[in-house]
């Protein structure tokens, strides 16, 4: 059975509130959703907590009346993006500062993270640092396209952009990654 048909049947079972289908879809996508979140948050613990929340929220969302889901994977990524935004909002509310400062702090912590890791010899570490330095949009398209191998249409759906804009984003993101790699 092709993976596409398998996913559709699992999705149908999920809509019927079948926990076994939920478990199978979890096994299928947990690693890629975790990785997608990991590059956006400061610690592994945060990535684990948010990944768990993504699956729970998606289960709840699918159970709500009137929510039709065509592509389960796109739904997971969209949910992950929203929860990361929530994560930084919650942090900012605790410190009573504006969104702009949160973004600046996030940028600072990424820069710091980058500096801490710049001595790391391993290529993967360097690449991870480069990804963390990218602005959100660029990092998203890089992960979705080259690590998780989503099609241009799927990425456009997740990011709520046109296919043309996604292609341009990928092109520019690759250009920036290339420059960062050569710098490091």
């Amino acid at each position, binding site marked *: 059975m092709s993976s596409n048909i398998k996913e559709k049947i699992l999705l149908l079972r999920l809509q019927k509130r079948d926990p076994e289908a939920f478990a199978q879809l979890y096994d299928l996508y947990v690693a890629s959703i975790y990785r997608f979140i990991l590059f956006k948050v400061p610690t592994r613990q945060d990535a684990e907590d948010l990944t768990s929340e993504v699956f729970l929220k998606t289960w709840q969302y699918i159970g709500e009346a009137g929510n039709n889901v065509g592509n389960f994977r796109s739904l997971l990524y969209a949910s992950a993006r929203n929860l990361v935004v929530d994560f930084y909002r919650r942090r900012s509310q605790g410190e009573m500062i504006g969104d702009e400062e949160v973004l600046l702090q996030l940028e600072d912590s990424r820069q710091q993270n980058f500096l801490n890791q710049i001595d790391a010899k391993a290529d993967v570490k360097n690449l991870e640092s480069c990804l963390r330095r990218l602005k959100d949009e660029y990092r998203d398209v890089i992960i979705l396209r080259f690590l998780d191998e989503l099609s241009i249409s799927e990425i456009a759906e997740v990011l709520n952009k046109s296919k043309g804009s996604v292609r*341009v984003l990928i092109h520019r993101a690759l*250009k920036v990654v290339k420059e960062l790699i050569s710098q490091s």
Partner: protein
Amino acid sequence: MHEDVIKKLKELKNIQPRSEWQAQNRDLLLSRIGASHQVTAPEFSWLDYSWVLGVLFKQKMLEPAVVMLLVLGFTVGSSLVINASFYSLPGQGLYPVKIALEKAQLAITSGDEKQIELKIEFAQKRINEIDKIVAQSDVDSTDKQGQLAAAVKELQKNVASVQQHITKENQSPDPDREKTLRIAISISSETKELSQSLDKASKTLPTTTPEVKDIVNQTVESVQAITASADKLIQADATSTDSLVENKEEEKSDAASNQLPTATSSTPIIKN
């Protein structure tokens, strides 16, 4: 252009969550969604299965071209004939209908980018037709040669039409940089695939058709020239690492327009 970077990026796939967390979290989630209360497997009606088939059918079969054919088919009351034309090959009676419908589809498509994608899709279809003609065993070689010549001629028209777009972008006195880049990237990525398919098809052409082979080779060169022109436009894009910190405002307005959920209402927003 960026193959080395892409190869390196793929190494990041090795990053995996801790396996013990993965298993524990799975159990935790199952307990939270109330798996323990599930005593019977859910029942599925024929309506459920037809939903799955419907979604798959929509994805595989209801491409814009087929939808167009069906709509027109119902309108004129001869959908079977028009659908049959979709699978016709050059030299067959319904082939001109197929080409006319493609032209109609192009005429009602607005926007340069969508038109380019459609034109390249049509060119790809011509290559598929060439493959099918070559694979035919019940047609004599003279007919085959005629069919191939007709398909290649149409292919040339499709390619020339894409070429016009790139020339237009190159000559534009007041270019919209974003739009030009989007078009150039679309053309570059699509024509690279086209060039590969065409190259593959040309190798399967029978040796008895040297003139057809010549036209195919000319077309390969045209496609490669289009790709080169598009790549030149892409290279001209002067974006640098400065963009690391740009567009924060744009991101925020994107988030607002997406109606991203707050900390208390994290509902996914995808609607299909």
